[in-house]
């Protein structure tokens, strides 16, 4: 029996396709139903049912031998195909114990205990509409017709991310030492400048400490959890298809770090306050890391790093967004870009 789990977001649909127990395929389909585009051909149920049928036909899967599991934001749509299980993303997030999922898309931010929805666009663009604001208002209006749109330049993406930043609940705080997965439509979109993903993740962290950051670019968290609810044996390791980005360390002020990889090139780094410093690290044998700061005290840990490595954020708690500090933003872009190009 084959299995397809589908996650329906506001800008795309992700699939976990298992033709048999051993094979796993992850597919991102970056379009969604829009009345202004498809209502003369089909309704929403029909659109997604046809999409699933197309995916099955292209892979030689017989619809009669395939189980369908759906999940989505905020609930999955009704389909004309019989499904085995349908579950909303909030349930999946609330039931996650060992990790903290942070789900972000163009409409909402959801994490354990919090749902923060879209703000008033007039508040976001500004109540007074000037000629130059038309572009921004039109972009927002076009996003309603073409919900899959991915900004084609950095400044448009920054506008979108600034709006996401505005949705972060004031009393949100993450516990140091936890694994945090950034997931949802915002991270599964094929954006031009991938470094903006890490800036957004860093800017969304709340509380001081050391955080294991994972970036989910295919909504695998939702797909995995929904599949697991249906049949635990169908899925393996959650982190197999999720990027381990590394450790993001928020110190709240200046800090010192001693990094020892055990191959004789120990590094001592001093980072002044109000900086973001990226230290590339990806090793097989865990390196020793000692961090010392006024607020955190001394923390000794072992780390293998990740796609990015170690990211130190010495900004004080309650300091503004990275997007509002052009110098810091440009510095972050350069550092993340350099690491991503180096990988």
């Amino acid at each position: 029996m084959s299995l397809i789990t589908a996650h329906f977001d506001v800008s795309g649909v992700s699939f976990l396709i298992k033709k048999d127990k051993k094979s796993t395929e992850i597919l991102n389909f970056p379009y969604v139903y829009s009345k202004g585009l498809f209502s003369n051909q089909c309704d929403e149920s029909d659109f997604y049912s046809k999409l699933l049928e197309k995916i099955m036909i292209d892979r030689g899967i017989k619809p009669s031998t395939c189980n369908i599991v759906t999940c989505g934001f905020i609930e999955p749509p009704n389909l004309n195909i019989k499904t085995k299980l349908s579950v909303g993303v909030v349930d999946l997030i609330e039931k996650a114990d060992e990790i903290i999922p942070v789900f972000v898309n163009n409409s909402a931010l959801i994490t354990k205990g919090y749902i923060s929805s879209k703000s008033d666009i007039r508040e976001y663009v500004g109540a007074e509409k000037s000629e130059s604001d038309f572009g921004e208002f039109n972009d927002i209006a076009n996003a309603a017709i073409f919900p899959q749109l991915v900004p084609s330049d950095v400044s448009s993406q920054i506008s979108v991310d600034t709006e996401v930043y505005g949705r972060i609940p004031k009393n949100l705080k993450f516990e140091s030492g936890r694994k945090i997965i950034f997931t949802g439509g915002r991270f599964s979109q094929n954006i031009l400048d991938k470094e903006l993903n890490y800036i957004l993740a860093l800017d969304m962290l709340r509380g001081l400490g050391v955080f294991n950051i994972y970036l989910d670019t295919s909504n695998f968290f939702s797909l995995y959890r929904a599949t697991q609810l249906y049949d635990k044996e169908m899925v393996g390791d959650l982190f197999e298809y999720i990027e381990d980005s590394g450790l993001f360390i928020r110190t709240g002020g200046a800090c010192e770090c001693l990094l020892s990889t055990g191959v004789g090139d120990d590094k001592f780094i001093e980072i002044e306050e109000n900086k973001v410093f990226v230290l590339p690290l990806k090793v097989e044998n865990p390196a020793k890391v000692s961090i010392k700061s006024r607020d955190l005290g001394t923390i000794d840990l072992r780390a293998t790093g990740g796609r990015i490595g170690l990211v130190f954020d010495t900004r004080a708690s309650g300091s503004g967004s990275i997007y509002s500090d052009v110098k810091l933003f440009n510095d972050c872009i350069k550092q993340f870009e350099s690491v991503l190009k180096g990988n």
Partner: protein
Amino acid sequence: MLVPVVKKITENRKCFIERVFPVGGVWGVKEGDFVEPFNSLGDCRFSQNKLSLPDGFKPVDLKTPSKFYYVDTLLGKAKNEKIFAPYDGTLKEIEGGGFVFEENERKYVLLSGVWGNVKSFYENMSALIETQTKDILLASSTKFHASGELVVFPNPSDVLKTSYLENFVKGIKGKIVYIGDYVSVDVVKRAYELEASALLVGSAHNEVFDFAKEHNFPIGIFCGFGRLKTSEEIYKFLSSVSYRYVFFEGENNLLRIPVRVEDLNPEKEVSENAVFKNIEQGMTVQILQDPHFGQTGVVDTVGESSIFVRFSVDNIIAEVRYPNFFIVE
């Protein structure tokens, strides 16, 4: 690269159009009758025009609650301005102060507007006609319903649009007007004042919709928000059905254009109705990425996460990232 297919114009081989009397009327057709757009379905009588007189209006010689006036006779004055009767009618004082001038009841003929068969009647109020249409998809529309004769302007420049509206020989009252590639809020206001039934346009700024929603005015855009050109395919089709009676269904994002059965493609020649296709060289796509937002072009090369599109204008090629495009058929 799996991409959805957008069909801007679709054929609807069987649909129902409801034609409604403004007030109860008398039917001139029966169930099963075949009708054509200019056939009368029946008629009714009602006052078809009403003029609300401005504050401070003082009637001339009105001694009873209402009085009949012939066209062009003096009704009264408002701030030294003389107001004459625009048609034969009755001047009435309304409760709470103020005056209205109502035109005399006139015969109103309800036309079929479509090629089809009368399916059923709802009392003396409405008739359901089974027909066939070609539907143009509206990217966005206000959620109102309107019907009327379609007037297609030849994409006039911004400065000429108001002049086109004001000087249209037959007047635009009750008409559904295609105004051009783009419309500003001032032109929409003027169309509303001139009592157009609905407005169609390639694109508009967001504030145009704010105005239309506020005034319950039907408006539909074909391409999107901003300043985008109406696609050649839509403009050519609209021009070919100019002056036809059409139906604006804002709730369904559709402009329904009645056609004869023989105007539809033969059923045998209708191609497979696929909603998704793998993108291939030579396909026509609509671009949703600056600086070509809204334009259509032909796929030249398919890359891993983008496509290269050739535009007919200047024959230039541009890279467009997945998913900022659709296949257009």
